[in-house]
């Protein structure tokens, strides 16, 4: 229905057109997103900002195929996501997306290595391949020596690095980070941001990051501001405000 509104951009990895999201019904209905159009190309580093309740997290969940829009069209790599089943979206996440959460969300009592290898297990990689790719991912976040430590033996910054290693171990097209520095002090936070920037620069991974801190958003190449469920402004970093 919204296909008409969707002007096909050949180099866009992600395209949103007229996305709305309503929670609840009738009187209690709350419209979190009121028509969002957004286009993101391969290799971009986009920060999504906005006050609480502006719809930025909802937009993130829809972009991450964790949630579905009430209406509107979402093209990922040229494929319609809004009409996908639960399992199809899970497979899309498995094959093309990586997630980093504010609360790290590592499995308890599980070594860093096993946490990182988990997505590979679901992809059906062999033990040898899992080991090799898992160690490579840990190496790229500088935690090779901590492979056998469990989450409780790691600092917050280290846990977030493990989470990033887990997110990139499958070589995803897009890495989605929801307040990745929210639970860290500013020094660790900047370290994590350096890491994300290098992932974007060196591996060409597209990064979408939700944050409310301007100095964290400053690491991104592009900043999208949400206000009241709509995009208020969308500009490249370095442009005048």
């Amino acid at each position, binding site marked *: 229905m919204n296909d008409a509104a969707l002007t096909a951009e050949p180099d866009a990895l992600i395209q949103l057109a007229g996305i709305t999201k309503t929670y609840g019904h009738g009187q209690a209905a709350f419209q979190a997103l009121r028509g969002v159009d957004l286009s993101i190309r391969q290799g971009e580093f986009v920060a999504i900002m906005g006050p609480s309740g502006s719809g930025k997290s909802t937009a993130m969940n829809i972009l991450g195929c*964790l949630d579905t829009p009430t209406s509107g069209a979402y093209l990922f790599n040229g494929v319609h996501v809004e009409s996908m089943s*639960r399992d199809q979206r899970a497979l899309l996440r*498995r094959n093309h997306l990586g*997630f980093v959460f504010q609360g790290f969300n590592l499995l308890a*009592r*599980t070594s860093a290595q096993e946490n990182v290898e988990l997505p590979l*297990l679901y992809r059906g990689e062999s033990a040898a391949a899992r080991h090799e790719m898992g160690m490579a991912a840990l190496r790229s976040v500088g935690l090779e020596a901590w492979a056998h430590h469990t989450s409780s033996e790691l600092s917050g910054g280290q846990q977030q690095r493990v989470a990033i290693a887990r997110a990139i171990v499958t070589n995803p097209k897009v890495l989605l980070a929801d307040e990745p520095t929210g639970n860290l002090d500013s020094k660790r936070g900047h370290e994590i941001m350096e890491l994300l920037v290098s992932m974007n620069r060196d591996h060409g991974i597209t990064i979408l990051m939700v944050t409310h801190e301007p100095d964290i958003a400053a690491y991104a190449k592009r900043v999208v501001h949400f206000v009241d469920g709509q995009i208020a402004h969308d500009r490249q970093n370095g442009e005048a405000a």
Partner: protein
Amino acid sequence: MGWTILLLALREIRRNLMRSFLTVLGIVIGVAAVVTMVTLGNGATQSVSDQISSLGSNLLMLRPGQRMGPGSGSLGAPSFKAEDAEAIRVQVSSLKAVAPTVNRTTVVVVGTKNWATSITGSNSDYFTAGNWTLEDGRLFNATEERAGKAVCIIGATVRKELFEAHSPVGDTMRIKQFSCEVIGVLAAKGQSAMGRDQDDTVVMPLRTVQRRLTGKQDVNTILISMQDGASSEQVINQISLLMRERRKLSDNEDDNFSVQDTKEIAKTLSGAIGTMTALLGAVAAVSLLVGGIGIMNIMLVSVTERTREIGIRLAIGALEKEVLMQFLTEAVVLSAFGGLVGLLLAAIACYGLSIVLSLPFLFSPSINLLAFGFSAAIGVIFGYVPARRAAQLDPIEALRHE
């Protein structure tokens, strides 16, 4: 995929050893308690019916007076004589053996050893009626019975207490003022249903005991063994009629004797034991239920942590059915393992207790299966259902679960 899921499940079990251990423990206790109690109960029932049948099959006991035990109203009822037994043998049909018996407890002396035992006077039918078999030597012959010769056949306990390892056949024992030649040894029968040692006995010809020990012509109990397939009701009727006639009872007088059927005693006793087994089974079922509630608690308590785990798995691209299969596998592995350990523990406990309590060890597949099935089902259901609910959440909601 199946292999991956199994790997995931086993990893989670290993990682959460405490939770796994508690789950397994609940199942182990439930299964072991039920199986042990019911198996021992069955063993007790079997033991009682074995003891009853060792009394003799199709056996009737004719005693003077009504009923046995306290409050019997006719203590003064006249005793039987050997002739009563003879009359029964001749006049009642479909009998196998009729043995008049008289009992006396006396000290028996061999060399320097003495032993107080129960001496029974009877005829060679006694061994048929009582299901006795000879281990050594021979039974009485007709001449010895008629003449009341001092010959005796001893039970296994008497043999053990008074004689060394060599065969006692041909040796003599001293009983009161006379000495008596041992001509046979009986095979052991063990305890009676009432807990008496049946092997603590010496059997002599009826006439020998009457003459030398009791000094009377009286007979205490007449044991009557019926042929297989004979109707005990008919035989009892015939015996009653015959005895009423011989004891000259008029129509309005009650019997001053009683005929007991061991089958009836057996029925009563196994009924009582059956009630006990049912009671034990009920206690065990409660413990199975409590074990099941324990499993439920552990599973439900861990749901919060596991909901987040499910959220993580879903977010990184696990399919709902993969997550569910993992949780199901975990539950099945834990429950099956707990069940098997429980069965093993029950087998060991039953084996040990059956020796201590000298009961037969009867393995019952049905109760093993039932206990295993029930607790495994609880483990699987309560491991799986909460996980199913969590896996149906949106990954984001599952991740936010506090």
